[in-house]
């Protein structure tokens, strides 16, 4: 029981990331009909937004502290971040400590802008081209984006800590009446899951309850007809692309403390996210989210020692295996609609 609960929890954080990336991929695919291989790179850029903000907040000037001496007996030189100078010690420290959550605000305009530029500058020229061309050009774009990041931030992972207050762990076992320490779960991962739920819920609410969302959903179902109604679908779709980019970026921002960002993290996630989209059903938003969590949790179950003893290596391949089985038995995925990408 406790083992199962623990595995479900363990699967949630990765599942959340898969779900958010897959949601964006599906939005782009459903609205624009474009297969975006650069979506993982957007996730990576989000993570580096957190890194960047952290660095900006840590920009320092040097003061000489007469009260302390270094080991040679000279007055100690101390680096003081500007934010401390401006806001005072306590508040300044708090700002730096909470840099990752703050990066959410910082990243949203950046990701919207990146998404907007990508769609207007590049993707829109590929609506009429074959899917293979779309895959290829966004694949090229992904390489370019990750190489740019590598140029500025180097090839090594950059640790980006969560706020101190959220660094500990939560004992879930006690909450549901199990033994102390039976199900201990890092607090930040739980935060990540809640955050993902919030973002995903927000996107769905936006699509469900706003006129804008309604038009977009109608456009996903039947683009031509909606276009005939005199509604400027293209502009809305551009905005949807920006939103999809922002969702991927936010997923990346909050993921930074879980896995230190490096320039190729996007590619690693992309491959899995594509598998998630296909399993969920190309073009189905609920399918993408459900499959994201499902595969995240499956992956975590497959890495249990008991399971591995039974089927060695299963943890390495479970996701791909599920994808292959689903694609062959239910070509449209779990919740796919008819007529999407069927040739």
């Amino acid at each position, binding site marked *: 029981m406790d083992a199962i609960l623990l595995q479900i929890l363990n699967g949630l954080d990765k599942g959340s990331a898969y779900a958010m990336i897959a949601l964006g991929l599906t939005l782009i695919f459903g609205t624009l009909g474009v297969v975006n291989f650069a979506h993982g790179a957007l996730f990576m850029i989000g993570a580096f937004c957190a890194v960047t903000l952290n660095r900006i907040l840590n920009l320092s000037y040097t003061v000489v502290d007469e009260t302390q001496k270094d080991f040679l007996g000279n007055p100690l030189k101390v680096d003081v971040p500007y934010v401390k100078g401006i806001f005072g010690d306590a508040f300044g420290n708090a700002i730096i400590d909470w840099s990752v959550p703050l990066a959410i605000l910082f990243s949203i305009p950046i990701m919207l802008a990146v998404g907007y530029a990508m769609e207007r500058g590049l993707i829109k020229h590929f609506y009429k081209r074959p899917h293979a061309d779309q895959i290829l050009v966004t*694949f090229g774009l992904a390489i370019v984006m990750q190489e740019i990041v590598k140029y500025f931030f180097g090839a090594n992972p950059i640790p980006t800590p969560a706020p101190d207050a959220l660094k500990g762990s939560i004992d879930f076992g006690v909450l549901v009446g199990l033994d102390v320490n039976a199900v201990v779960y890092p607090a930040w991962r739980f935060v990540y899951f809640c955050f993902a739920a919030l973002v995903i819920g927000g996107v769905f609410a936006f699509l469900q309850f706003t006129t804008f969302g309604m038009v977009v959903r109608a456009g996903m179902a039947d683009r031509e007809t909606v276009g005939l109604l005199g509604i400027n679908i293209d502009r809305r779709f551009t905005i949807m692309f920006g939103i999809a980019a922002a969702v991927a970026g936010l997923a990346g921002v909050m993921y930074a403390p879980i896995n230190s960002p490096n320039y190729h993290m996007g590619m690693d996630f992309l491959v899995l996210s594509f598998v998630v989209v296909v399993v969920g059903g190309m073009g189905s938003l609920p399918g993408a989210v459900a499959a994201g969590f499902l595969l995240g949790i499956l992956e975590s179950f497959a890495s249990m020692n008991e399971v591995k003893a039974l089927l060695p290596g299963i943890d390495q391949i479970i996701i791909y295996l599920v994808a*292959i089985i689903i694609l*062959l038995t239910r070509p449209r995925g779990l919740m796919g609609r008819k007529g999407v990408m069927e040739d």
Partner: protein
Amino acid sequence: MFGLDKKDTTLLIVVTALVVLAPFILNPFPADSALAQFNAGYPDLMQRFVIFGIFAIGFNLLFGLTGYLSFGHAAFLGVGSYAAVWMFKLLSYNVVPAIVLAVIVAGLFSVLIGYVSLRRSGIYFSILTLAFAQMSYNLAYSVLTPITNGETGLQVYSNDPQILKGDGPDVTHLFGLEMGSAYTLDIGPWSFVFSAGYYFCAIFMLVAFYLAIRIFRSPFGLMLRAVKSNQQRMAYTGLNTRPYTLAAFVISGMYAGLAGGLMAAMDPLAGAERMQWTASGEVVLMTILGGAGTLIGPVLGAGFIKYFENIFSKINDSVLHQWFSFMPDGMEDFMVFIVHPFIGKGWHLTLGILFMLVVIFLPGGLVEGGQRIAAWLRGRGKKPAGGSGDPEHHPKPAPHVAE
């Protein structure tokens, strides 16, 4: 000649000449000159040219003809390498059994993957192949360690059986001819290296290229292009598309296996990273950059990428300063600053941008670029003639109004 028409024979002869004379052509600069760093005529790099050439030719037989975009072809290359190294471990360092087994194993493996993946088309096919390749890669790193030697990579140890070795050499060889052996020809300040390994691979590449031409020009090749063009019409014309695509998939898988086997024959190692999807991505880049669906394109693409990867990573800031030294100081620094991100380790950035430009503006790759330049030059000479100089398959005369 060899069952080819005149144009194809010319193409084959040109390619053969280039491959045979490569040690000269790729070493145009004297060994002690400053430009010697742009020489590419050393065995290791030349071997990579032809091996990746084979890989790309094979990939193009699938993607260029049928339009099925596989993102998992590196798996076959990796499997080929493993099979070859196992032959070294069990039999001897002779490369012949290694390469034969590499092709066979890769072929069988591609029958398996192709049979399953080809039940879907379009993006689903791409993702299925990607999933299979990633699965193979992950397995090679984990449970299959007894076969693949995991992260260390598979290599030959002195206590391996090598039952046929006798007192044969301790390096890879072809019936005694060591793959690493080379003859250096010095002419004045120039130095040309003729490597046994290179010529061994080159023969395979020429055969592979010749077979590719034959396939392109065969009724079978026509059917593969028909698959790309209209599967519905094909089915209603009485043709079963499945065996055609599977045959193309397996043939291209065997090409990849051959490339993998040759890699191991040049350096008896095999690692799982050869199967990673980035490696599959690389062959996609080569084929598209050179010109998918054309004969010479993939070879050009492979050579282009491998050459510039090698050269670009050698250029550093001091080389740049030399180049721009004719400029005023400020200007020089500025130029170096601008160019810096694209050289050295920034080669992948350059490659990514180049690749995007090709996909956007030049879908036919370098071959199309060459044709456009040729057409432009001819157009300047006189009014364009009706026939195009297209050295590749399907001439596409526009429905001209002028005639």
